[in-house]
């Protein structure tokens, strides 16, 4: 039971921990405050508990597609919020931040929402899992130990990623972080396509490829890549299309965001010059 709990809790924690690591790395480079982290974590945990307590009825919504529909809504929102957050910080560096203060604020709020959603998604399953053992009272000690270890490894991975990103040469931190966020957004949409396939809202088609012999999803590297970039060994067309759409959405937001700031910066520069001339 010990090993099972370690693996299960690690699987659930890893994705959220890595996402938080990336968002914090961007935040650290911009030197914004990180109050949003705590708001996101705490509200996420509370809502996750409410979901876990009512999972029985939620699961029966939409003719037993309730869980999948809720997950799809949350995953799509994460994808949209990520695109908006990336738009805000693209083309922005900490030297300009004084003039672009509002961007930092909005970025923080969006990060809070993204983390809240990520915690709800993963937290409800952890709470259901642990709730089962607490109510039955069996294997309690092993499960508690395993969960602490699993959570510890997951959280450490996020911290490791954070320091890895911050430790990169300064010009690299943001492009790499934004790329990871784009892949994460793709993962979210791809997972939601799979969720809807599971309840027959999207037709199941034959997998586009099968790389399970090359890299199994339940192997250590497979699990890590699943959490980091959404690796699937047997994805369907709907998953691949959704993945690409999610990645493109964030990349477009990144390009648009930096172009907008460049143009706006130039405009302000011209205005300043003009006012200087008239004076």
């Amino acid at each position, binding site marked *: 039971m010990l090993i*099972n709990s370690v693996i*299960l809790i690690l699987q659930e924690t890893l994705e959220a921990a890595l996402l938080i690591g990336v968002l914090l790395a961007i935040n650290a480079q911009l030197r914004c405050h990180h109050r949003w982290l705590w708001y996101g974590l705490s509200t996420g945990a509370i809502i996750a508990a409410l979901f876990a307590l009512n*999972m*029985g009825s939620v*699961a029966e919504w939409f*003719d*037993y*597609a309730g*869980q999948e529909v809720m997950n799809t809504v949350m995953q*799509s929102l994460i994808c*949209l919020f990520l*695109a*908006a957050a990336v*738009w*805000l910080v693209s083309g922005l560096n900490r030297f300009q931040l004084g*003039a*672009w*203060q*509002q*961007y930092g604020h*909005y970025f923080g709020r969006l990060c809070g929402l993204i983390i809240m959603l990520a915690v709800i998604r993963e937290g409800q*399953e952890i709470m*259901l*899992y642990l*709730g*089962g*053992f607490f*109510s*039955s009272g069996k294997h309690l000690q092993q499960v508690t130990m395993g969960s602490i270890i699993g959570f510890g490894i997951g959280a450490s991975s996020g911290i490791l990623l954070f320091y890895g990103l911050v430790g990169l040469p300064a010009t690299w931190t943001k492009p790499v972080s934004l790329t990871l966020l784009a892949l994460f957004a793709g993962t979210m*949409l791809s997972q939601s*396509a*799979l969720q*809807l*396939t*599971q*309840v*027959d809202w*999207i037709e*199941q*088609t*034959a*997998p586009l490829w099968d790389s*399970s012999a090359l890299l*199994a*999803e*339940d192997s250590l590297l497979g699990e890590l890549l699943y959490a980091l970039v959404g690796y*699937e*060994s*047997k994805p369907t*067309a709907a998953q691949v*299309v*959704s993945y690409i*759409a999610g990645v493109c*959405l964030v990349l*477009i*937001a990144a390009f*648009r*965001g930096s172009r*907008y700031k460049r143009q*706006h910066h130039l405009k302000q520069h011209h205005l300043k010059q003009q006012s200087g001339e008239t004076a």
Partner: protein
Amino acid sequence: MKAAENQKITKRSLCSVSVAAGKVAAITLIANGLLVGAAVAAPPVIELEIRDHLFYPAEFTVPADTKIKLLIHNMDPTPEEFESYELNREKVIPGNRRAVIFIGPLKPGTYPFFGEFYPKTAQGKILVQ
């Protein structure tokens, strides 16, 4: 004054980003819609039970190239998670509740599944012929 201006700009630009996001989302929805076939006959239903962290039946046969509706009753008071890497399926089933999972059409072969919360005992496989 400047802060207010900036705020206005941010709001306007957030609008433009959400429009772009909407476009991409719409494209995805259409693409997904194309993949949604018209539902023909209702797929055959196979009922499974979870009792004392075991699946009943733990092994069953389904026809190849057919969509199947699994109706899983969790008779235990504790939740369980139906999971299969081979089927690419994962779903939590709260205690004393039921869940529906669609699988297939599948190629002939053996597709193992397990209960992620009690993986030692809750194991089974689907034979596709």
